[in-house]
């Protein structure tokens, strides 16, 4: 509630700069949203809706449009859904399995390290499975993260079958009475059909071994990515039925606005935000704060 209020507050500031709701106002709003990678069609629809709403309510003074803007923006993200769907699905008293997928270099392995640390801090017994058997140094990388977080890593040699590694991981996790198994996978571009099939196979192995699993399929998206993220979300969902997004590299200047459109079109919520390369740099995602962040630059300009 607090973040929402402060968001409206910032929108206020934006509005204050334009006394009239004119073409310039909408043009600037459009540019702000586009430069945040929100996506052209989402932005155009939003602006059209706003214009219509402004007309319908006969709003001339910019001060009155602010309500409408914040309403519409948050609405894009949440749609008609309940607002607290973002909890990670971890079941008590059984092995919960999290499958992590995404394109090359998005931040899968790092996010797994951070998540393992977080769950470990919460008292969970966590095991990692080194399902990226392809990329040079991938197993060693996960190993280092396992050490940092203080959790075991189940691995085989480079080049072995990823489905076999995951199968092994499930067996080991069970025998260790682990609470959570997090499975790393090799990065792959979503237009590589064979590699997407390989991923679907990994998921089938998980389903076969633990009927209620995977409890989460997390798609890792790099916030620096533009419109292609939508295609990533669609295709990875088709292959593995993605349940949530980890939006990484939000500590840079990229805004990752495409997740608004992804949430809106595919109903996939963002569950975590990556804010750096250290173990503690994973945060629960806050949509209100995020939406407000899209305007930060503009608002700073305003403040000057």
């Amino acid at each position: 509630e607090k973040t929402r209020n402060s968001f409206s507050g910032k929108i206020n500031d934006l509005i204050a700069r334009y006394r009239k709701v004119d073409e310039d106002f909408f043009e600037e709003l459009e540019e702000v949203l586009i430069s945040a990678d929100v996506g052209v069609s989402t932005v155009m629809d939003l602006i059209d809706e706003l214009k219509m709403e402004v007309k319908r309510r006969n709003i001339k003074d910019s001060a009155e449009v602010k309500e409408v803007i914040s309403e519409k923006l948050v609405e894009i993200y949440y749609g008609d859904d309940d607002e607290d769907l973002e909890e990670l699905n971890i079941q008590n008293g059984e092995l919960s399995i999290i499958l992590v997928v995404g394109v090359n270099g998005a931040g899968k392995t790092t996010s797994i390290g951070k998540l393992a640390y977080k769950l470990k801090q919460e008292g969970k017994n966590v095991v990692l499975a080194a399902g990226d058997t392809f990329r040079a140094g991938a197993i060693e990388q996960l190993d280092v993260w396992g050490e940092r977080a203080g959790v075991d890593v189940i691995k085989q040699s480079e080049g072995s079958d990823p489905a076999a590694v995951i199968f092994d991981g499930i067996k080991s996790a069970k025998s260790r009475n682990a609470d959570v198994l997090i499975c790393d996978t090799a990065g792959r571009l979503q237009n590589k059909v064979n590699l997407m099939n390989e991923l679907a196979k990994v998921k089938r192995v998980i389903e076969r071994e633990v009927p209620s699993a995977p409890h989460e399929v997390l798609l890792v998206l790099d916030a620096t990515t533009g419109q292609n993220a939508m295609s990533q979300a669609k295709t990875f969902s088709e292959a593995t039925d993605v349940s949530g997004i980890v939006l990484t590299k939000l500590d840079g200047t990229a805004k990752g606005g495409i997740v608004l459109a992804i949430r809106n079109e595919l109903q996939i919520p963002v569950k975590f935000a990556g804010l750096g390369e250290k173990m503690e740099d994973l945060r629960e995602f806050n949509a209100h704060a995020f939406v407000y962040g899209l305007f930060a630059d503009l608002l700073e300009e305003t403040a000057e």
Partner: protein
Amino acid sequence: MAFEGLADRLQSTMKKITGKGKVSEQDVKEMTREVRLALLEADVNFKVVKDLIKRIRERAVGQEVMESLTPGQQVIKVVKEELTALMGGEQSKIAVADRPPTVIMMVGLQGAGKTTTTGKLANHLRKNHNRTPLLAACDIYRPAAIDQLETLGQQLSMPVFSKGTDANPVDIATEAIEQAKAEHNDYVIIDTAGRLHVDNDLMDELEQIKTAVKPDEIFLVVDAMTGQDAVNVADSFNEQLDISGVVLTKLDGDTRGGAALSIKAVTDKPIKFAGTGEKLDGLEAFHPERMASRILGMGDVLSLIEKA
């Protein structure tokens, strides 16, 4: 393909304006609106798009309609020419130092593809230019970054110079070059850690490496899927390091790759190579013209125009 091509989008607009003698301002306005959307959907930065559209409008309005082309095709021709001009010519050459070794430094954001491209470039230099590169492992931060480069070195049977993670990247780079001289390696490719362009300490580290080893090339490695932020990234790295060229990675994906235009527009440095796969042979010369068509998503229309 995730997006419909510009050609489809322009169909209806084009129909309306056939059979006229001149391309009117209104025609151009309608068409450039579609062009603008297509460029934005391809992730070209909105400021770059703005400038482009302005130039296109100025050039297209009032043109005599050519017999062989519809007014729509004519506008597209102007668009294509502007894009191609902005992308520049083909430049996949790599510097050769007067006195070996030639030093190449790889820089860029986290996960862009620096380490992989280091291996690919080494492979390219040996295969196509008969060179004997040494790879230098200057990423002391990312977990197992050195293992990754050493694995690539093994795959290529090429030497990798590393000093573990406790050494200073500047010293590692300096000593790598000494070793290259002693062992007669004619190229040294320096892999650096990924970093944010706004991380002052790490950006300074790159400047220190640059000062110490005076590289003949500094390649900014950029992920082709990058969105609007590409201009900030390219501008900052170029400002601080005066890069000599760009490598655009992951072009084997289905992204339109509008970042290519943005980077070129803000740095005016050539995009030299394209990464087209995860394997060590996945490196190609960058073709600006093909990239222009890819960004517009309109190979078919372009081939029509080329014939006219």
